[in-house]
């Protein structure tokens, strides 16, 4: 018992300050890219050539874009660009409500909008989610698990991953949705009582990621369950736990601020409304 207490004292409190304080990221962390299409040289497509997932659009034109739903945040396009038109920054706020909003242009982020007032009233203080890995590589699964640990502590916001779809208010899908897991995903969705949310986490669940075009996968959760739209997309490969937290909290209307304060060690959401 004494040793348990001693260890407890030594390790101290582990929970991150976010969203009241800074969320810290290493210097090389690659979050939202800032694009400067004005620098693009006509006819140049070096960024598109090295992209593993065809995420770069309009290369060499004034309509340069990166589809964050496909992007693996590997940074190869930035490395390849001779003009410095692409710069991955440390803005971890990547989630969006629609597939179109995931296509990044310029350097002004489009942030995820909150649910409507009624859904916010229903889920705002308690959201229980069932996770389905539909051929996820265990990267997104690991980061979703991490959101529940003592560091990120999703539970402090009333958000929790539960064991049964019967207890859940929504389904979080990871992976490109394999043929072999399609029935499992659909049955889990059917077992979840309405009103319910469908959330796609990671490049695979949004677009198929590195498995886009696989003959035995469905290129992610969009359209995998007949007639069911995705309510929230959280990009990344895998998304950082804080990116996941930010997406969920914005969906619930519990983080709204749009300002970023840069510090030497990380990025701070200036005044997140809670």
């Amino acid at each position, binding site marked *: 018992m004494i040793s*348990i207490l001693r260890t*407890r004292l*030594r390790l101290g409190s582990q929970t991150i300050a976010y969203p009241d304080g800074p969320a810290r990221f290493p210097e*090389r962390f690659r979050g939202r890219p800032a694009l400067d299409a004005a620098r693009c040289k006509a006819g140049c497509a070096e960024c598109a050539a090295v992209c593993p997932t065809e995420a770069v659009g309009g290369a060499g034109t004034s309509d340069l874009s990166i589809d964050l739903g496909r992007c693996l945040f590997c940074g190869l396009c930035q490395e390849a660009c001779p003009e410095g038109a692409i710069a991955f920054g440390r803005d971890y706020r990547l989630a969006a409500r629609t597939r179109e909003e995931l296509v990044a242009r310029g350097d002004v982020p489009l942030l995820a909008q909150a649910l409507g007032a009624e859904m916010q009233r229903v889920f705002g203080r308690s959201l229980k989610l069932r996770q389905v890995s539909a051929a996820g*590589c265990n990267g997104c*699964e690991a980061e979703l698990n991490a959101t529940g640990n003592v560091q990120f502590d999703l539970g402090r916001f009333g958000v929790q991953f539960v064991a049964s779809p019967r207890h859940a208010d929504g389904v979080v899908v990871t992976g490109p949705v394999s043929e072999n897991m399609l029935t499992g995903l659909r049955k889990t969705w059917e077992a979840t009582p309405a009103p319910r949310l469908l959330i796609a986490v990671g490049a*695979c669940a949004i677009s198929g990621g*590195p498995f886009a075009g696989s003959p*035995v*996968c469905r290129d992610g959760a969009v359209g995998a369950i007949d007639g069911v739209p995705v309510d929230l997309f959280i990009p990344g490969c895998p998304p950082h736990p804080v990116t996941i937290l930010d997406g969920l909290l914005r969906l619930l209307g519990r983080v709204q601020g749009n300002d970023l304060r840069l510090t030497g060690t990380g990025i701070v959401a200036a005044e997140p409304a809670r």
Partner: protein
Amino acid sequence: MSSRILQVKNGEAVEARAVPRLSVDDLQGLVADVVTAGGRVAALYGREEAGELLVTAVLPNDREGTLGLLSAPVTKEWPSLAPECPAVQLFERELAEQYGVVPRGHPWPKPVRFEHRLGGAGPDAFGREGPRADIPGGYPFFAMEGEEVHEVAVGPVHAGIIEPGHFRFQCHGEHVFHLEIVLGYQHRGAEGMLVGGPTARTVSLLESVAGDTAVGNALCHARAMEGLAGVEVPPRAAALRAVALELERLANHVGDLGALATDIGFLPTASYCGALRADFLNALAEICGNRFGRGLVVPGGVRFDLPSDAAARLAGRMEEAFSRVEDAAGLFFDSPSSRNRVDGTGVVPKETAQALGLLGPAGRASGLQVDARKTHPFEPYSSATLPMVTLEAGDVHARARIRFDEARASAAFVVQVLRQLPEGPVRAPCPAPRPGRLAVSLVEGWRGELVHAVTTGADGRFARYKLKDPSFHNWMGLQLALRGEQISDFPLCNKSFNLSYCGYDL
């Protein structure tokens, strides 16, 4: 015998046509001889050459540090070697699924991962064609009869945030007679998608074969590519790769210790290890921007250098981080209530482990001397003093203790390498692979030995990219560990193996 087996080094490329072509009898005889003499089979897989199916075996000689290559042309069927060598049973099933080769007399002829044929046309060896019936509905489960025997079916969707798989227990009350595990839900067609490469997507796809082993698979791939192109990586790159591989091992081993503690409700270790795992993930992010080390390792070296002063600071932090792990995990091993649950639970005896060809911590916890870092090393492992940690008990405690001991060794290794990073560049140009060559690359990932066996065609593109995660062998170990145990100990046994679903399903 030597002329019938081509001996190569880990990562060395040879002319694909130089791999000896034997009769099926001779190939099976040589495989059986190696297994009987205590050796193992790293891969036994199909590849096509000029329209002909060649079953190719990779037989590692762990004492000499060489890999034996041999092949045999096979058409529709061959006699099963599995009754004699249980370690090849799954390879034969894979050949049946991927190429339609029927293993005559196989005791357990069932699908592996419900994939479509890779080669040839028509129905596969299980008589299937076209879209698959739902798994597990389409699977012939082993069933026990008797009035009081009952079945427990779990999955594919499990209670936690876990990959999908189906577990079917034959029980009498709490007592488990038999556990059968059906996988395939995660199948993404990785091997098929790699054919025709390398492309801009190859490395990312391989990092996603098992996202918790991104560094391991990227390194295994890079070493195969370097072999095929005939280039050496600069020493500083080799050192940084090894640091990344060991950080991946540390993160996962420490996370596993926390997960084991979670499953027996021992919260102090569960909470601390869950958080401490992040120190190692964040160290990877500090090197390359991604917590799983994605994008770091590429053919020819690494994409990110670590300045020496940053490396020295990181070494200090890793030393401190592991001393915290010593505290947090130490609580678990010193607590009588946790020891009561793990000691003697889920035993895999050495003979069983040997027969199944268990790899990684699971094999070493049962006394097998299997660690590719020691037996088939490359720099900086060949000149390092990393110990091979083995235990004899083969129970949950041993599989936990192995992780603790290995994590300690890895931490010391990381600190040492970071403090003595060789000077120089971190990347050498890696030209396109030469045509008509075959390279087999082995890397000891945190779960055990990864195998990438790559063949290029006449155009220099990948004609066949065979992948093998250690979980391919180890899932059978988990099934046998459960025999005679209580079903309530399943989560504990499962976590003590912590195998990859997607690494198996590909």
